[in-house]
């Protein structure tokens, strides 16, 4: 005779009427014994019982493979004994203990997992994403770039005379340059220039109008070429996609509010990443100028001009480009550290004057 006996309710899966049963734990055969007037005696091994609901003083068990024969136990002492003797519920026990470990523990658990994810997000993902780019063939960059550069937005607005002139400027400046680089001049007063992953360099007439010396144009071109050389577009894309995947994975079922916060944070972090790329393009752009003996001062003049152009002072953390003052500082430092053997470039000068003439027409 076992000392663990209690009154329980049994539902037979046929009707909602409760049957009062005397329930005891059978230690030798490890199971429950239910004794009822109407339904007789049931011997139920622990392995055949599924825990449907567990609280301190409430337990619902269902008899295996039925889901409909239910035992309802409300005696806390008996419930404790049930879990003590029921060795097949150890997995359930673990789960129950963690779920009921208290909010402080859960917050700690959540915080540690989130900081692990943050570490992955800030350090592992950028690293892996960059490594992944090395595995992606350059032809993918070309594909992506082409879908943009061949779109009507670009082709319709092109100033083809200027494009020819600029391409020839580029070939005089760096004859050895890869054939992927192609300059397109756009009729647009916005002071802007950018590169696409396939080597297309888009230059607005707006920025050409602001230039006074050929070294400035050489500076812009070398900066944009460096972006393509370092595959910044692809790296940004790879990093963005993988970072986003991680974030959605972690937060997919947290409510919208949290997602909005994280989304914006992700934007800011991406901006810091693109600032890093800009700096990289500046510095290797300088190297390109140096290797062709062009005065790098042109690049600095250009940024000074761009700074004047920008009326509002955007704080650095909100900007995709390094703040111009800081930019000028590190460029000057670079120039001091690596002096350039400047040569005369009569051909480039002539070409540039030619371009200026066409622009100002």
């Amino acid at each position: 005779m076992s000392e663990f006996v209690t009154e329980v309710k049994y539902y037979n899966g046929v009707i909602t009427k409760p049957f009062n049963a005397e329930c005891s734990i059978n230690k030798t055969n490890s199971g429950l014994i239910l004794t009822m007037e109407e339904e007789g005696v049931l011997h139920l091994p622990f392995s055949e019982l599924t825990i449907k609901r567990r609280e301190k003083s409430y337990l619902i068990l269902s008899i295996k493979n039925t889901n409909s024969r239910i035992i309802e136990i409300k005696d806390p002492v008996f419930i404790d004994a049930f879990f003590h003797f029921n060795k097949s519920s150890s997995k359930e026990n673990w789960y129950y203990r963690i779920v009921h470990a208290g909010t402080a523990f859960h917050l700690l658990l959540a915080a540690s997992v989130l900081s692990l994810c943050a570490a992955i997000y800030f350090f592992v993902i950028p690293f892996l994403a960059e490594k992944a780019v090395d595995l992606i063939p350059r032809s993918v960059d070309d594909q992506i770039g082409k879908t943009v550069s061949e779109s009507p937005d670009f082709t319709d607005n092109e100033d083809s005379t200027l494009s020819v002139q600029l391409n020839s400027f580029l070939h005089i400046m760096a004859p050895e340059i890869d054939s992927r680089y192609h300059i397109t001049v756009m009729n647009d007063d916005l002071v802007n220039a950018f590169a696409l992953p396939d080597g297309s360099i888009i230059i607005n007439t707006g920025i050409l109008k602001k230039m006074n010396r050929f070294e400035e144009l050489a500076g812009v071109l070398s900066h944009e070429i460096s972006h393509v050389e370092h595959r910044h577009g692809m790296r940004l894309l790879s990093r963005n996609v993988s970072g986003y995947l991680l974030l959605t994975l972690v937060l997919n079922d947290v409510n919208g509010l949290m997602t909005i916060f994280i989304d914006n944070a992700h934007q800011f972090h991406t901006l810091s990443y693109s600032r890093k790329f800009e700096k990289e393009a500046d510095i290797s752009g300088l190297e390109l100028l140096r290797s062709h003996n062009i005065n790098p001062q042109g690049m600095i003049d250009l940024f000074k001009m761009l700074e004047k152009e920008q009326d509002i002072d955007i704080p650095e953390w909100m900007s995709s480009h390094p703040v111009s003052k800081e930019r000028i500082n590190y460029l000057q430092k670079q120039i001091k550290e690596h002096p350039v053997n400047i040569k005369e470039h009569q051909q480039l000068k002539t070409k540039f004057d030619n371009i200026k003439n066409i622009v100002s027409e």
Partner: protein
Amino acid sequence: MEIIEQKSLHSNPERVYPFSFVGTGSTYFGIAIINMILKIFTLGLYYPWAKAKELQYLYGSTSFDESRFEFHGTGKEMFKGFIKAILFLGIIIIGFVVLMNMQMMILGFIWYLGGFILIIPLAIHGSYKYRMSRTSWRGIRFGYRGDRKEFMMLFFKEMFFTIISLGIYGAWMAINIRKYVLSNVRFGSAEFKYKGNGGEFFVLNLKGYFLTIVTVGIYMFWWQKSLFQYYIDNLSLHHKDDTIRLKSTASGGDFFGLIVVNLLMLIFTLGIAYPWVLTRSLKFIFSKIEIVGNIDTEQLVQTEKEYTDATGEDMSDMLDLGFVV
């Protein structure tokens, strides 16, 4: 005369059935955190198991007439359903891409739109069938007896009228679909009925819409109260000659308090309080439903079959349909 006499002799006295939600935010938080961690480490594949755990907890925390509901759905079932649902959606999207590549734009769009319109009633039907069959009380299963073809015809008919009336018929559509679905829900040998009509529902929404604008949003809570009331008060359960009626006792002020506090909780904890918000909302809602009638809750009999295909359930999730129609 004799028959009437007999009937009243046999019918049970009216009584109020206790109905409440006993779950706590902290326990639900624990479940949610463990689910989140497992989802992260399995790259999201744990999702169906996580959902099963959450539903088991929420159903098991709902107490009617001193007994809890049981949810028997498993992660495995919902995972299988998930795969099937992905295949369905995949066929629609692949078909669309193929047609687009063949330059058949119009056909592509028809395929895409048609596919999704077709999938919505399938998802509603499937999710009701699954959810009801996997829910039980004292071992007696719920069930959904709607006919798939019939429901799809109804859905398309209502959809058609809604489109040609530029959305005005939407109120009738909502009620007719709700009526069909809820009136086909069985609780063992007992049957649910939903009475309500599109006209009333339309007026209710029209009034709610304009008063909300006029009062710069404040009436929204009273509108919410009326919508809830229209849902609950028209619902009843029938067993033989006996009935149970549901009645909402929530006021607009109640909804105001609930929603404003919920929002504040979410904002100031950056969403971490979500489990508490959910449990307190359920507690509130269930405490505002009064259940009165004379059905003998010890005499409901097992009548509904088991149904373990969760495709519709997962499809609803993917389309973000939500469960309640």
